[in-house]
């Protein structure tokens, strides 16, 4: 790892000031991706700005029909929150399946969403639940947040402060996990709210995406059989040592069916 300057601001404003004018400065949330990246020298930074001491970024609030999770809330807190389990059980279950217990104690929702790893779990929840990503500058709808491989709508000096998830009627997340890393080879999050069904797929392509053929079929009939013969176009899917594009396309349908069966 190349050396850098380490900062630990106590407010978002202070963090943004520290970032200003430094092209090779980055903020660090839990560090579960950034530290391995630095260790492999895939990045060389002048400044690392640790957000851990910013109290305003932590905590879970359930108000009315929304669950709002502070950006620096670790996965373990979400997974074990009684309030989240009650309001959106699928979200707590998803958080409980990220990495392993030690990673869940450090990794945060803000870090995971901002990083937009193509195999991340949380991105699928944000997109399928039609969440709102709140930053120090604005609120961004899930549909316009994820832009591509590790790319988001976040601009210069813009930090995620919280993610707000609307409570839905039924939801579930199912993933076919890489047995070593627990990242999703394919993960599907299904959410039903009234007549509307949203389905987000992670792990299959370069960025989390919504799957229109599955959503249309499930809107007509919210049952695993309804998508049994849906064709998934996998021509742009990832193909690697873990799974071919064809296999991933197959897994999208299977995970979607399992998610519908499990939805609560």
């Amino acid at each position: 790892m190349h050396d850098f300057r380490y900062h630990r601001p106590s407010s978002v404003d202070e963090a943004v000031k520290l970032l200003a004018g430094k092209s090779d400065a980055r903020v660090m949330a839990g560090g579960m991706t950034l530290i391995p990246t630095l260790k492999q020298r895939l990045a060389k930074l002048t400044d690392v700005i640790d957000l851990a001491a910013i109290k305003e970024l932590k905590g879970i609030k359930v108000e009315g029909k929304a669950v709002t999770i502070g950006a620096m809330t670790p996965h373990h807190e979400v997974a074990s929150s009684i309030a989240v389990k009650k309001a959106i059980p699928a979200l707590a279950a998803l958080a409980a399946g990220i990495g392993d217990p030690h990673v869940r104690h450090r990794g945060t929702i803000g870090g995971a969403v901002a990083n937009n790893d193509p195999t991340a779990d949380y991105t699928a929840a944000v997109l399928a639940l039609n969440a709102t990503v709140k930053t120090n500058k604005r609120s961004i709808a899930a549909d316009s947040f994820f832009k591509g491989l590790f790319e988001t709508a976040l601009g210069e000096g813009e930090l995620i402060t919280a993610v707000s998830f609307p409570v839905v009627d039924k939801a579930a997340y199912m993933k076919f996990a890489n047995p070593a890393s627990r990242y999703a080879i394919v993960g599907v999050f299904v959410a039903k709210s009234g007549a509307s069904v949203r389905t987000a797929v992670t792990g299959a392509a370069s960025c989390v995406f919504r799957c229109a053929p599955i959503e249309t079929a499930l809107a007509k009939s919210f049952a695993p059989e309804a998508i049994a013969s849906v064709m998934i176009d996998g021509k742009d899917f990832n193909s690697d040592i873990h799974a071919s594009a064809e296999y991933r396309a197959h897994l999208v349908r299977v995970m979607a069916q399992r998610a519908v069966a499990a939805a609560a």
Partner: protein
Amino acid sequence: MPTVSLEVNGKPVKAEVEARTLLVQLLRYDLGLTGTHVGCDTSQCGACVIHVDGRAVKSCTMLALQAGGTKVVTIEGLARDGKLHPMQAAFKEHHGLQCGFCTPGMIMAAVDMANRIPNLDEKTVRHELEGNLCRCTGYHNIVQAVLAGAKAMRA
């Protein structure tokens, strides 16, 4: 160089470290606490698991500076007055180790697991051990040891 102050196994520690110093490097090289191991160095194997403010973390994936102001417990901090911690005793009793390389991380993960989950069963233990690899593949006895150790901790 920046300075970091923290508590390690109940004792205050102050050290000058480069910002890039990992917490495991501070423990092993600066403090000589070599019970915490580095296996994969890629946050997968769990040989480096320690407790920071009561939570199990992978010390190869945390900067020493991030631990400023925290209370750290390593495998060296578990025994009390020359007496093994109940989880250590259970690993000895149930032969929860073969080569022993993964053992410190396994025990620290097991103590954290037992602290968090009141009624551990075999399925839960196996799921909770996903972040700890034993390349001797001696999981059977490790799981038995964790179950016995957790029970002894509650006694």
